[in-house]
């Protein structure tokens, strides 16, 4: 059974007095010990999905569909169950640790408070547990770091502290929302290695949100691609890199410049990404799709099972046989 299962999740948020849909029938599942990547561009609905999973939707938002954590409905939770779920069910690693950790408390306070208040540990034992957990994320002088404030640590160090706090909480699902977007590449590589290693050692589940397809593919088992508030493709990571099935995924891979060679022009995707509430009756990618057919503008494609994955495209079978979009020669 999946640890996390999201079924037909639709979310509306209030902007300028209007209810606007931001998620459309989002479907995803994360098995125990599995890492799922959720990939897409700004506004596709990745972070909103993460917030829904943690029951942290903005004020005035409404949701339909279901989110099951270990079989229990997250959207239906109240009082004690909800608190227990937030305490031990999931833990979040945020994009900007400096704004996610209280700046007026020390790292020691941040890491030991839950152990003392929730688990009822004594301060000394909690500090020892924190130092041991810091060593696991590669911070060897843990005792000194416990006395430091967030602003005294570098971004990479703070992100390790956040991972450390996830480990201490004992939660089985880590939701990491662009955890390395503000870090340098060499620091990113280290933080991702730590997250990946500890997750595997402890068989934790990971929902990894990123705009970087290559990074997600390197550390996730499967990847779901989002566009305009819906899942357009889901596949195992290797398959997605080798044979992306949805036209959007294919175009995204082709549009990225690569370090291995320049081309005179990149095969850019024309136009701009639409928001979920702007989507019409047909396929949301139809206006930018190189493979568009007349029925794409009128018929909304369903997320259909294909071998080992899912794809939301009316022409998926035909397109699979075509070569990937190519770069123009330099």
């Amino acid at each position, binding site marked *: 059974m999946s640890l996390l299962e999201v079924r037909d999740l639709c979310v509306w948020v209030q902007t300028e007095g209007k209810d606007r849909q931001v998620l459309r029938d989002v479907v995803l599942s994360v098995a125990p010990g599995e890492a799922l990547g959720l990939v897409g561009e700004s506004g596709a609905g990745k972070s909103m999905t993460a917030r829904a999973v943690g029951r942290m939707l903005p004020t005035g938002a409404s949701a339909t569909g279901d989110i099951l954590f270990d079989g229990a409905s997250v959207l239906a939770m109240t009082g004690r169950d909800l608190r227990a779920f937030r305490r031990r069910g999931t833990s979040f690693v945020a994009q900007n640790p400096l704004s996610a950790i209280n700046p007026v408390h020390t790292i020691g306070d941040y890491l030991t408070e839950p152990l003392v208040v929730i688990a009822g540990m004594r301060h000394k034992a909690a500090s020892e547990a924190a130092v041991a957990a810091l060593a696991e994320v590669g911070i060897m002088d843990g005792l000194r770091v416990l006395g430091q404030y967030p602003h005294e640590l570098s971004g990479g160090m703070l992100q390790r502290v956040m991972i450390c706090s996830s480990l201490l909480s004992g939660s089985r699902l880590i939701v990491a929302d662009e955890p390395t977007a503000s870090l340098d590449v060499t620091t990113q590589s280290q933080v991702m290695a730590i997250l*990946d290693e500890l997750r595997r050692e402890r068989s934790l589940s990971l929902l990894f949100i990123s705009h970087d397809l290559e990074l997600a593919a390197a550390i996730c088992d499967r990847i779901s691609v989002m566009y305009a508030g819906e899942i357009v493709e889901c596949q195992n990571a290797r398959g997605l890199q080798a044979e992306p099935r949805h036209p959007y995924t294919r175009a995204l891979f082709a549009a990225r410049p690569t*370090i291995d060679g320049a081309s005179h022009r990149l095969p850019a995707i024309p136009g701009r990404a639409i928001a979920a509430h702007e989507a019409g009756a047909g396929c949301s990618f139809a206006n930018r799709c190189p493979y568009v057919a007349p029925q794409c503008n009128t018929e909304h494609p369903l997320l259909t099972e294909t071998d080992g994955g899912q794809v939301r495209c009316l022409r998926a079978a035909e397109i699979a046989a075509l070569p990937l979009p190519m770069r123009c020669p330099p």
Partner: protein
Amino acid sequence: MTGGTILEAREVRKVFPLRGAARRGQELVAVDAVSFALPRGGALAIVGESGSGKTTLARMIVGLEAPTSGEIWFDGSPRQYSRRAAHRRQQAREIQMVFQDPYSSLDPRQSATQCLEELLRLHFTFTAEQIEERIAELGGQVGLGQAEMNAKPERLSGGQRQRVAIARALAVQPQVLVFDEALSALDVSVQAQLLNTLSDIKDRSDLTYVFVSHDLAVVRQITEQVLVMQRGHVVETGATAQVLSAPQHPYTRLLRSSVPGPGWRPKRLDHEPSSREPQDHGEAN
């Protein structure tokens, strides 16, 4: 390329005094002994991580900071760092900069049209018709339509704002454009569109680009030469294709191997300093 050196750095050094009681009298060498020569129509990348001095070097090239020692040469003469308005305007017409964050670099009360009009009036003696023509031309160059040109920045997406910023930089007809991480905050599909726009602009002029970036793939796509900086020093330099396909310096190799791609695995190095100082402020003396 039309040949001749347009931009040159000669042993440029920038030292900042450190503030705060504990560090009074101490100095930070942000950029040390950097030299390069860039031909007209060329494209140079300055790559490195936070604290490498790449942004400080870019700011000196544009004239937002004066070097502590050394000189920046433009078209055969050294750049002066005078406070006189006329002189600063003159130098602004030579080298322009596009900043990283299009959300803070544009005036929220001005549409692109208003912004460009103000600039053109300040720098040139154009008639109203000439200004109108020039604004239309600039909009076309960066791929913005009439509606977008007349919209306030809050109504524009990140990619459109960055197009406005590029139009603003192009308005004064500079010979060198400096991009300080100008494409870093953009989505992949928007980044690809802008990279194509920049190649098109360059194809039609002999504009020279300086690209400050940490993104090696973007650098590979748009530049011919590269400077790799670490803690204020240039550790490797050469043709971009050469340096990125066969990096010689250990730091360039580390950068290269940290970029995710097919078959890539993150590496745990555990040599990162735990304190904030050395990372964010470069080398403290």
